């Protein structure tokens, strides 16, 4: 056993890709391997034994220090940008009583992954922007054809042109979603906040999807608690979040189903619930619901055109307003989507 330990230690010390640091209960540096020393640009010998409050002057340590100094630290992950050529992901793991309350910090180099991520986002942005010109051309031409700007058309011709127009509008929506996602990833999203009325935004949403609701014979109800306060928010974005949540409820609720929106509030926040009797989300897929490009297994068969971006966008909008978003769902029975928005924004 001892022999094995002797063999393993040099491996961890110098041949390991990840940086490893161990801090004592008192937050003195107990162990540091050479990749970690390289990442943080410190000399191992000098740093060993020193307290985090001394080490935090070194760039990179600062972020780690914040968490070490907390009393009951939980496992934590954080991205640390040392410089533009070195981005690390730090996993901070408390080792517990068996290890005398030491804390393990693993530093993983994610620079390349981050770069690829940025390139992907840039590529989607470029592609989406490039697509907007041809789809605008299609939109304008079709509209003018249907409006008989180029001469009379027959009823059958009109019917088919209207269909192409609708399909093109869906394409425009997909491209808008992709660009919204890009803006979220680039952190350039929210704009000015003004006073908004949540109930009204839900009514807008209802009107927007009225046709589909009627067609499917879905029962719709909105329950609003008295004196629902108005809040300050980015109206356009909150409307978008509501539309995305509401659209899912409409899409995935089968004929003769029911959608209930309830709006409540307490002193601190407005709490919104959108409940449907739809197909629900299978339990084993629930953890991915808010991640981008997620599509539920049943969802794909019901609606082939969704982008899997709606809830990703909704979550980002709500969280950017310091709200919370979550859901409960049972396959075959329906889903309840909740979100909160603080009444007073800082």
């Amino acid at each position: 056993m001892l022999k094995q330990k002797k063999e393993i230690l040099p491996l961890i010390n110098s041949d390991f890709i990840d940086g490893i640091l161990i801090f004592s209960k008192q937050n003195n540096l107990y162990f540091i391997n050479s990749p970690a020393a390289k990442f943080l640009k410190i000399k191992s010998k000098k740093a060993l034994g020193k307290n985090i409050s001394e080490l935090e002057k070194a760039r990179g340590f600062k972020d780690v220090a914040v968490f070490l100094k907390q009393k009951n630290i939980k496992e934590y992950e954080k991205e640390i940008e040392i410089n533009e050529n070195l981005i690390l992901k730090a996993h901070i793991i408390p080792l517990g009583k068996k290890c005398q309350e030491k804390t393990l910090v693993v530093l993983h180099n994610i620079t390349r992954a981050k770069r690829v991520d940025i390139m992907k986002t840039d590529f989607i942005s470029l592609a989406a922007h490039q697509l907007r010109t041809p789809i605008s051309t299609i939109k304008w031409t079709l509209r003018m054809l249907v409006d008989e700007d180029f001469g009379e058309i027959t009823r059958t011709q009109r019917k088919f042109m209207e269909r192409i127009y609708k399909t093109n509008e869906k394409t425009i929506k997909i491209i808008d979603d992709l660009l919204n996602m890009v803006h979220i990833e680039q952190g350039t999203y929210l704009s000015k906040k003004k006073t908004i009325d949540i109930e009204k935004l839900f009514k807008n949403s209802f009107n927007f999807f009225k046709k589909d609701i009627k067609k499917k014979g879905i029962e719709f109800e909105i329950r609003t608690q008295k004196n629902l306060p108005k809040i300050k928010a980015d109206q356009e974005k909150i409307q978008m979040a509501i539309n995305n949540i509401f659209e899912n409820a409409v899409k995935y609720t089968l004929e003769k189903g029911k959608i209930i929106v309830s709006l409540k509030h307490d002193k601190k926040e407005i709490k919104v619930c959108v409940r449907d009797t739809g197909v629900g989300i299978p339990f084993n897929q629930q953890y991915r619901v808010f991640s981008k490009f997620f599509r539920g297994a049943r969802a794909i068969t019901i609606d082939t055109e969704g982008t899997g971006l709606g809830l990703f966008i909704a979550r980002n909008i709500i969280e950017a307003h310091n709200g919370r978003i979550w859901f409960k769902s049972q396959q075959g029975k329906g889903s309840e989507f909740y979100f909160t928005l603080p009444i007073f924004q800082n």
Partner: protein
Amino acid sequence: MSKKILIIEDDKFLRELISQKISKQGYIVIGAIDGEDGIEEFKKEKPDLVLLDLILPGIDGFEVLSQIKSNAELSKTPVIILSNLGQKEDIEKGVNLGADDYLIKAHFTPNEIIEKIEKVILK
């Protein structure tokens, strides 16, 4: 007398489409294929309104806009941006430079664009 509208748009088909629509409404339409051409036509023709694309070969729409707005004699001419850039910064930049409206091409039909033009031109 008919009002004059200058359309600065590098995509030939889009320019023709919107030109046709606008001239049908009784306006005189002048087309320009890029930023430089646009500024030249602007100075020569003194239009009543400019419909301006942003991504143009050579000097871009933002530059055209700031040149129009810095010309003492002509700076009052209303400008509507008609572009496919729709990011917050682009819109803010356009409005700060003095654009009267900002329309994203894919979000407006030709008729809606006409409505916007009339709203600005009759103001």
